[in-house]
């Protein structure tokens, strides 16, 4: 199955891409996808950073199981305001 991944802010700059499509195994979790992406884009390995995870624009936990065509966003520390 395929999921769509969007990167923003620090992660977008580090990945060098804002938007990609990624083939993942059925039943993959958000955490497993992140590990795959870190292999594809080694600069995503930012020491000490804390992330939140969103699937289809809702916050989810790291163990959340992905579905085909999900939109997945890894959210670096927010700083609006």
């Amino acid at each position, binding site marked *: 199955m395929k999921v769509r991944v*969007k990167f*923003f*802010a*620090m992660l*977008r700059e580090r990945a060098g891409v804002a938007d990609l499509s990624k083939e993942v195994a059925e039943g993959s979790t958000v*955490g497993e996808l*992140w*590990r795959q992406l870190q292999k594809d884009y080694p600069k995503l*390995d*930012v*020491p*000490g*950073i*804390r*992330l*939140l995870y*969103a699937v289809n*624009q809702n*916050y989810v936990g*790291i163990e959340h199981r992905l579905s085909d065509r999900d939109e997945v*966003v890894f*959210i*670096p*520390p*927010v*700083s*609006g*305001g």
Partner: protein
Amino acid sequence: MFRVTNQPIDLNELVAYVTDPEAGAIVPFIGTTRNNNEGRKVIALDYEAYPEMAEKELARIGDDAKTKWPICKMAIVHRLGPVQIGEASVIIVVSAAHRDAAFAASRFAIEEIKKTVPIWKKEVFEGGEVWIGTQTGQPLSALK
């Protein structure tokens, strides 16, 4: 009204939006960009968002505020893109029958924005630039 925009925010439009015959108070909060941060001389700020989710989270903050305090209406607009020093980066306007609820809901909204809304601020200062932000969550090291 909960949105992000690349245009300067119009305070009067937001005040008009929350104006309500049942309201006895309208509280505006304007977050502005400051020319210094942690000893750095800030030249400009640049905001980026995950826009669809940011607007959804802003609306969620409005819903939560309504369950916590008896407010009439709330509007939150956050600016994106480059914002010059002294300009408004976010404006929150709340109307309520009584001022206590309006002040409390306004305070709640700005604190929540800083915690959960996917908006990021890049600070351009003399000698460099940096993405600002702190939040709790899973350390990446836990994923290995």
